[in-house]
């Protein structure tokens, strides 16, 4: 997929934010949130090519879109999440619903449907989930039976129920996953087809501006031409092919929502005076509620950006990377939103301030497009294979590269990142030798440690660059301090939690207590407080009280 140049991308972002400022003020969002109401008029405007045309990002130029790449989509998704995660989800559902077509559609199908989505402002929904088929789509119950005339398949009769479908009650067209005689397949279903009806709009904890509904399909007749790819049985592959970047979009949602909450807390902390000084001057406040969140969010950003750039550079799949990005950013976003409520105290607990809503909204990023626990499993599975394939060298090789980076640039936390990677590699090897991965708990926990160590390494790489992101609001000193903080914490977690994990299951930890090199990990903690002070200062400078 082609990418948009930086100037055009930023003009688009400016247009989006200017639209949001004018048309979607917080008072309106708050009202819609209370009423559990989907703002159809706003979505239609956002899809209007004369006003914004945000959905055109996902559509290739030859079908009337603007051919956004993964990086562009990440930036727009982050911005959407800062506006409202419910509205963002409405847009995302169209992106997602368009995906099976983008990935598996024939040229004729793309010509017809992508062009219609582009020009007719169609809201699209992606309908895979069922009562017994969520993370595990193998138990798909929705059936698509052949309709045969003169010995030729002319269509399909689809019957079944879908649930928790974003845009479910409001979409114009649906991409529906159903079990055809040849296996799971995607079909295009239009809203007015006979036998098709959406159920009631769910009353959700958060993202209440996003319409979520079940779908019921009762013998819905769909022309054979609506089978995506014109071949049965490709559905799961088509679904999986896009996880790398669909998960990147949810990662951007976690990042955007979390960053918005954090910024509000930073601005507030400079106004609220207690015991003679603003909260922003108190380490007990900043180093607990502000700095660690900023660090986790920026670490996740660096990983999202690296993965997006790799996808735009032509690498395919990157499922494990997409999962690491989603897991890290959505968990970081949740932490940040939770702490933002705490940071605003009594105000944070009211609906007069947006952080309360952000906290409810952002929870979804740990659930949809694969829960955090599914991410832990996916990340473990992907990297366990690498560990075996390289005979345990995978993370040691990565650590060597970190050492080289540290020799070149000692300010990026690469030394601690190397310690984290080596500790992780040693823990994984011990798990292999003692066959500990037969316990699911061990595998999921490894997934968590893997994600953190890889993000730390990525953040160190990014922190060595002159400008690590075009969006970043603080200077090199600031983000290098963040990279060091994240690397130190990760090294400590990889060593201590990794060791504890093994000790909790096995008879003994063999030589692991030496191999995780806890002495070096302890020594690497030096300078932590000074770095946290620096980050607190940089945040205050970047996000001034209004």
């Amino acid at each position, binding site marked *: 997929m082609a990418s948009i140049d930086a*100037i*055009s991308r930023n*003009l688009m972002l400016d247009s989006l934010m200017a639209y949001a400022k004018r048309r979607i003020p917080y008072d309106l969002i708050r009202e819609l949130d209370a009423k559990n109401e989907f703002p159809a008029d706003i979505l239609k405007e956002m899809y209007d*090519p004369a006003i*914004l*045309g*945000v959905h*055109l990002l996902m559509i290739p130029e030859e079908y009337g879109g*603007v*051919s956004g790449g993964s990086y562009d989509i990440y930036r727009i998704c982050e911005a959407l999440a800062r506006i409202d995660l419910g509205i963002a989800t409405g847009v995302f559902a169209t992106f997602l619903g368009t995906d099976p077509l983008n990935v598996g559609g024939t040229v004729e199908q793309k010509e017809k449907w992508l062009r219609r989505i582009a020009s007719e402002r169609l809201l699209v929904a992606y309908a895979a989930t069922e009562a017994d088929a969520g993370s595990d789509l193998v138990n798909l119950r929705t059936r698509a039976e052949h309709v045969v005339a003169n010995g030729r398949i002319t269509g399909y009769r689809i019957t079944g129920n879908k649930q928790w479908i974003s845009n479910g009650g409001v979409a114009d067209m649906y991409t529906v996953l159903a079990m055809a005689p040849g296996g799971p397949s995607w079909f295009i279903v239009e809203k007015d087809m006979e036998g098709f009806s959406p159920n009631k709009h769910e009353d959700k904890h958060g993202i209440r501006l996003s319409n979520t509904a079940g779908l019921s399909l009762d013998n819905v007749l769909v022309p054979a031409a609506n089978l995506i790819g014109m071949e049965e049985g490709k559905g799961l592959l088509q679904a999986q092919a896009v996880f790398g970047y669909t998960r990147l979009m949810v990662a951007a949602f976690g990042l955007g929502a979390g960053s918005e909450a954090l910024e509000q807390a930073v601005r507030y902390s400079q106004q609220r005076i207690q015991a003679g000084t603003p909260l922003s001057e108190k380490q007990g406040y900043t180093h607990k509620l502000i700095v660690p969140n900023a660090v986790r969010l920026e670490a996740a950003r660096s990983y999202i950006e690296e993965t997006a750039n790799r996808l735009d550079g032509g690498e395919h799949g990157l499922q494990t990377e997409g999962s690491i990005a989603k897991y890290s950013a959505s968990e970081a976003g949740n932490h940040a939103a939770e702490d933002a409520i705490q940071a605003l105290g009594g105000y944070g607990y009211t609906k007069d301030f947006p952080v309360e809503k952000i906290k409810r909204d952002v929870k979804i990023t740990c659930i949809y497009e694969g829960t955090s626990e599914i991410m832990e499993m996916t990340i473990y599975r992907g990297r366990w294979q690498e560990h075996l394939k390289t005979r345990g060298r995978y993370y040691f090789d990565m650590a060597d590269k970190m050492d080289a980076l540290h020799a070149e640039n000692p300010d990026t936390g690469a030394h601690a990142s190397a310690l984290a990677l080596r500790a992780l590699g040693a823990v994984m090897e011990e798990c292999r030798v003692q066959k500990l991965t037969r316990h699911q708990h061990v595998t999921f926990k490894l997934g968590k440690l893997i994600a953190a160590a890889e993000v730390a390494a990525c953040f160190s790489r990014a922190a060595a660059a002159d400008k690590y992101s075009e969006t970043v609001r603080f200077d090199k000193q600031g983000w290098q301090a963040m990279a060091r903080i994240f690397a130190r914490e990760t090294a400590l977690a990889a060593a201590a939690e990794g060791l504890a994990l093994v000790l909790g299951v096995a008879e003994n930890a063999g030589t692991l207590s030496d191999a995780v090199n806890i002495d070096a990990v302890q020594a690497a903690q030096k300078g932590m407080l000074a770095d946290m002070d620096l980050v607190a200062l940089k945040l205050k400078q970047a996000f001034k009280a209004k």
Partner: protein
Amino acid sequence: MNIVVCVKQVPDTTEVKINMETGTLIRAGVPSIINPYDHFALAAALELKKKHNFKVTALSMGPPQAKSVVQMAMALGADEGVLLSDMAFAGSDTWATSYALAKAIKKIGKTDMVFCGMQAIDGDTAQTGPGVAQQLGMAQITFCESVEVDGRRIIARRLIDGGHETVEAKAPVTLTMIMDREYVARYPSFPAVHGSLKKPFHVWSAADIGAEDQYLGLKGSPTQVNKIYPPAQKEKAAMFSGSGQEGARKILEIMRGEHFIE
């Protein structure tokens, strides 16, 4: 008719702070925007384009990233864009800038109207528009609120002390626009931004426009900035409401509090 609109990229001054030690603007992390007065001037020019099918060229001078404002102008409807970008222009004051812009307008070709914002929100000088007119030997109408064209007649409604004045001129003319209070800045849609990449866009150096070095940059600038500093903060006024009697009582209370009276 052919219109050239001059647009300037400025820092969003609502976010700019001054470094008190060095006396310079802290621009890091401050978003750049199109100067709001220029945005309004552009809208006025595009309105005429729509009505009369005129050609509109957007012109800016600045570092390479100032392409952003030219591209934005094209995304909003300008037909063509020109950016003057060259180290030789760096440090130009309003005189040197007017000289360079005028040279560029000559190179662009026959121009009937030049639109400028009244002033830029970063410098607030309001000199560049008139400077361009002078350099080009054009008539100028400043502080315009709206502009109409009737055949070869250009009719501008301009703001004057205590009222308005309607002025008529023949092309070529330079117009500087004030901003309508009601005006909401337009932003281009995603496909409009994407489409603007296909419009002709040129980056010209000093040599390209035949500008002489001695009239450019710091050395071509008669104005030199010695120091930038924020004005001394005035003490905040306290506001009270109520009847005259209550007000008088309040004043007495404050004066007693400050020990002006016993």
